[in-house]
């Protein structure tokens, strides 16, 4: 190719898409996340897209590749494609599951690519450069502590769990140890799969099975929606409150409005993906040290502080 | 000549539930001989053959293989003993090639791989022996019925059968194909193979069989050398009554033109077919297999895409685009394939009987009582014999299925009936009943078309015969012109009278 042509081509590309294609001075960041199959993931997808748009404006030298996968296998394919066809310089990944994703991410890291892992840790330590972690045991602990505080004399509660995974186990373990010895009894526990319909059915059956339930730890705001509908339909007055989790905007709104059934919520912010992308971007364009582990703690939302957790524009 | 007995049945009985279908059958297959096992449908031929081949165990009695008593636990045991059975419904895997079928289950190998070259060569050889010119790599699904039959026979050849059992092998074959088959049978018997075959075509039986065993209602009623019995004798033994007057007298006096067809074309099958059909008349349609007879009439009845210059029914022009149109004009087609196109084999007689004319039995809701009444009437009128009314139609004998199919078609009271191979694969007693019915229908003022590959049937039954060749009408024969010779000449493309060209 002649010198003339190269220049021309370069100029055209530059004009078309900012700095996107000029490999030399552009940094490509791959973002691989699970698809929006439930509320929390939907919020996470929203935050990812929004952050990428914002960062592309701010840093013209950065180019992002976003892929949402419907299962772990598809996510592995996405990552392989990013490496092979886009030559990414950094990878931000929220793994579907830890075990199946560890080897492919490991090989990306070994090739010298910056790796940021979000939410779920990998099975092998020390692979990633940056770990933006959600605090699942903390999520359970904060929830448990709130329950204890709210019911100082103890009481009988039922628990709805998510999809059987490590995340769910860590949360429930954290919750159980927090309420230990407080007089609060878990009289029943079933999987509601982080799904409104499933939690509705489970709660209906709990209401049939138990004549007295003092409170419900729904452990997730989507499940709390189903639980509330079931309680309302049964017309039961014995349940004092339902504690969800994750910080869905409708639930935060109810906390803000002082709804008695939803006195509080516990964050597990889907915006942690935004934090991770942002930190990675900063690490790519500057010399600021961003490696290490960055834990995003779970915070209790109460009517007092609800305002600052309310994002009316987010789908979640 | 009494050859060595290879396979014998001694006092074999077989019951299905409480019903005994074979009452002490004795049968001898001798090396180097052809045994014809004949009988009406439902007489127990198929059961007998299945017991011989090891498909079904006998309830009591003994099976002797070269004088020693054996019990076949499975079909495999039968094949191990050198007994091969060819079914009436083919036992070929449609999606595999001819070669793959012939070597199915005993593929030749060279090392870990299939020895394709060898298998193809051998297949070619077997096919040559039966004069079948299909490519060993053709998929079976692409073959015609007669080619499939030949492949079945080639498969049997490849197994070096000591005993070959064939269930109506000639039902789907043309005359010349039958000859090829018989040549092979003769060659196999000359090498000492024992052959058992069944056929409803008694002429063939007389031609090929060395020994004839006749079954009637599960018992052997005749068992003797073939030379000791005439065709009439066989028919009488099978039916239990004299059937010499197989065809009803042609008393009809054709009336008005009921159906007039001009320029009927079925893409790929028939071109420019035209004919007239009169009230009170039976029009025979003859031709070789593949001449486009079935397709032309299916096209006429809206069952497959077709076009016509002009179709008139009772003097009025009509257009027929779908089966409903044909039925509305009183035109009804009885399919040649009762098992695949005619009857729902897993449904009861009642459901089958009324399927085509369901709108005559109630409105949106079906009037079951009316259906039952119709079934009573049909059973009576068509002499359908079934154990239970609720049994699946697939369990009826072929003859009774055919009678039910006819009854089903008649539910819509057609003015014009097109019967395609109305007696294929059924016994002579039932044939006689169906012929009588068709003639009676014509005599009542309906018009009837009978498509048939059996020359005797067309000549015996029809007032007039239309012969088709390669999708076109080759000619029409009436009165004294109606001879087998004349039909064959038209069917193969020789003029009816220019015999010079033959030589």
């Amino acid at each position, binding site marked *: 190719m002649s010198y003339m042509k190269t220049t021309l081509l370069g100029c055209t590309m530059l004009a078309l898409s900012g700095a996107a294609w000029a490999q030399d001075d552009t940094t490509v960041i791959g973002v691989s996340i699970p698809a929006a199959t439930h509320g929390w993931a939907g919020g996470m997808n929203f935050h990812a897209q929004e952050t990428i748009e914002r960062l592309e404006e701010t840093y013209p030298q950065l180019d992002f590749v976003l892929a949402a996968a419907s299962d772990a296998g598809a996510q592995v394919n996405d990552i392989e494609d990013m490496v092979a066809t886009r030559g990414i310089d950094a990878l931000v990944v929220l793994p579907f599951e830890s075990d199946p994703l560890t080897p492919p991410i490991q090989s990306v890291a070994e090739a010298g690519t910056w790796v940021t892992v979000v939410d779920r840790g990998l099975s092998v330590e020390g692979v990633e450069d940056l770990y933006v972690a959600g605090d699942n045991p903390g999520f359970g602990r904060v929830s448990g502590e709130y329950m204890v505080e709210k019911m100082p004399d103890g009481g009988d509660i039922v628990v709805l769990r998510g999809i059987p995974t490590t995340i769910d186990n860590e949360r429930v373990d954290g919750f159980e140890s927090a309420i230990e010895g407080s007089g609060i009894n878990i009289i029943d526990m079933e999987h509601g799969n982080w799904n*409104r319909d499933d939690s509705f059915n489970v709660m209906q*059956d709990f209401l049939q099975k138990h004549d007295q339930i003092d409170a419900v730890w729904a452990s997730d705001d989507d499940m709390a929606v189903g639980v509330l509908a079931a309680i309302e339909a049964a017309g039961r007055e014995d349940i004092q409150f339902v504690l969800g989790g994750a910080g869905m905007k409708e639930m935060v709104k109810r906390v803000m409005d002082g709804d008695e059934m939803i006195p509080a919520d516990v964050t597990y912010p889907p915006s942690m993906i935004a934090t991770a992308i942002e930190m990675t971007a900063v690490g790519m364009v500057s010399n600021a040290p961003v490696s290490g582990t960055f834990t995003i703690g779970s915070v209790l939302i109460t009517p007092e502080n609800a305002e600052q957790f309310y994002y009316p524009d987010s789908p979640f | 000549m009494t050859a060595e007995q290879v396979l014998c049945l001694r006092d074999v009985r077989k019951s299905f539930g409480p019903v005994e279908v074979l009452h002490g059958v004795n049968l001898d297959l001798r090396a180097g001989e052809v045994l014809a096992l004949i009988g009406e449908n439902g007489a127990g031929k198929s059961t007998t053959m299945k017991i011989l081949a090891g498909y079904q165990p006998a309830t009591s009695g003994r099976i002797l293989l070269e004088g020693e008593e054996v019990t076949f636990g499975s079909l495999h045991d039968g094949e191990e003993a050198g007994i091969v059975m060819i079914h009436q419904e083919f036992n070929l895997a449609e999606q595999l090639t001819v070669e793959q079928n012939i070597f199915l289950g005993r593929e030749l190998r060279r090392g870990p791989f299939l020895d394709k070259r060898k298998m193809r060569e051998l297949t070619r050889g077997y096919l040559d022996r039966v004069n079948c010119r299909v490519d060993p790599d053709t998929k079976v699904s692409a073959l015609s019925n007669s080619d499939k039959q030949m492949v079945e026979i080639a498969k049997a050849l490849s197994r070096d059968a000591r005993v070959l059992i064939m269930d109506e092998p000639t039902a789907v074959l043309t005359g010349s194909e039958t000859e090829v088959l018989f040549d092979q049978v003769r060659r196999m018997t000359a090498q000492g193979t024992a052959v058992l075959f069944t056929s409803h075509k008694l002429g063939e039986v007389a031609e090929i069989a060395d020994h004839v065993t006749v079954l009637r209602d599960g018992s052997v009623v005749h068992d003797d050398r073939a030379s000791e019995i005439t065709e009439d004798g066989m028919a009488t033994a099978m039916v239990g009554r004299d059937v010499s007057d197989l065809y009803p007298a042609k008393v009809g006096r054709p009336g008005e033109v009921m159906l007039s067809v001009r320029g009927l074309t079925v893409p790929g099958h028939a071109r420019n077919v035209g004919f007239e059909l009169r009230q009170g008349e039976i029009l025979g349609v003859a031709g070789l297999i593949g001449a486009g007879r079935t397709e032309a009439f299916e096209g006429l009845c809206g069952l497959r895409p077709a076009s016509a210059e002009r179709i008139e029914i009772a003097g009025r022009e009509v257009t027929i685009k779908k089966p409903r149109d044909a039925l509305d004009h009183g035109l009804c087609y009885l399919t040649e394939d009762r098992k695949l196109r005619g009857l729902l084999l*897993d449904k009861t007689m009642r459901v089958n009987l009324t399927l085509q004319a369901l709108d005559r039995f109630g409105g949106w809701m079906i009037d079951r009582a009316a259906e039952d009444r119709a079934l009573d009437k049909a059973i009576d009128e068509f002499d359908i014999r079934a154990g239970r009314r609720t049994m699946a139609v697939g369990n009826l004998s072929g003859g009774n299925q055919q009678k039910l199919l006819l009854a089903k078609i008649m539910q819509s009271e057609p003015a014009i009936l097109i019967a395609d191979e109305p007696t294929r694969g059924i016994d002579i007693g039932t044939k006689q009943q169906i012929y009588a019915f068709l003639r009676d229908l014509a005599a009542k003022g309906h018009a009837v078309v009978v498509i048939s590959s059996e020359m005797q049937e067309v000549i015996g039954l029809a007032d007039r015969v239309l012969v088709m060749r390669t999708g076109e009408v080759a000619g029409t024969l009436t009165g004294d012109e109606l001879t087998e010779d004349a039909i064959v000449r038209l069917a193969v493309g020789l003029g009816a009278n220019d015999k010079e060209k033959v030589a």
Partner: protein
Amino acid sequence: MTAETTNTRARRSLPSMSVLGPIVALVVLVAIGAMMNSNFLGAANITNVLARSAFIGIIAVGMTFVITAGGLDLSVGSMAAFIAGLMILVMNAALPSMGVGVPIILLGMLVAVVAGILAGLLNGFLITTVGIEAFIVTLGTMGIYRSLVTWLADGGTLSLDFGLRTFYRPVYFEGILGISWPIIVFAIVVIVGELLMSRARFGRHCAAIGSNEAVAHYSNVDVNRTRLLTYAMLGLLVGVATIMYVPRLGSASASTGLLWELEAIAAVIIGGTVLKGGFGRVWGTVIGVLILSLIDNILNLTDLVSPYLNGAIQGVIIILAVILQREAKAKG
């Protein structure tokens, strides 16, 4: 003849296992449930189980026709989610102009029914007229509707306006004479479906097509039209199920109706309909649906097994229910 007559009589006194199988399974489940928990047979629990069976049940009745006619529809679950999303969007959009009231609810219902019929017709058209395998067509539309609803909801949840929801709520939770609407609608659909299947021409034609398409064609049955109708009917029933579903939680998301198609198909097969077509019975499908919801209900009401094993229990019971019928076939 004597033997045959006795045979008939013996049959009449005891229906075959293919009929008894699903009923026996249901009775056993009910007995187990009653033993395990005293509330099980209470009116409230029965209402709960029946009402939540209604969605899958209404869809499964339609599925019975599709399968009987030799078809299959994998798209019903995501179709339901899509219709629910569409309904919510339309109702929310119409709220400012129409206000809360009966008309806006009727508008929502109309949207659901029309969208259902159209979606069904699309499946049917591609399968019959274009001639693509039902499995492929509905697998395709399954993905299409699922991602459409995700897109409509921006990956999150579409929620019905709160005021509207309060007004619409009784359609799921209330009814006449203490019987809630979903149960009433389910019952009506079942009765009409059963009549249509066993007594009407349409059902007979479906069975004929599923049993042997060629025979049906040669018997003057309009094969394509009948098939198309089965899919359109299934679409309509998905719409009806959605009308019952939306008032319950007032929301739709990407996870709405997840795996409903498999549950509906499983219910149809447990009920004795033949998967490859040719024979179907609507009452059997109802029993199949009830068996499936009762398993969940009983497992929730008792602490018999680890919740991790719920799926396994369900799988075992589904297979057992079908084996019960098969054995009967071999004997009969």
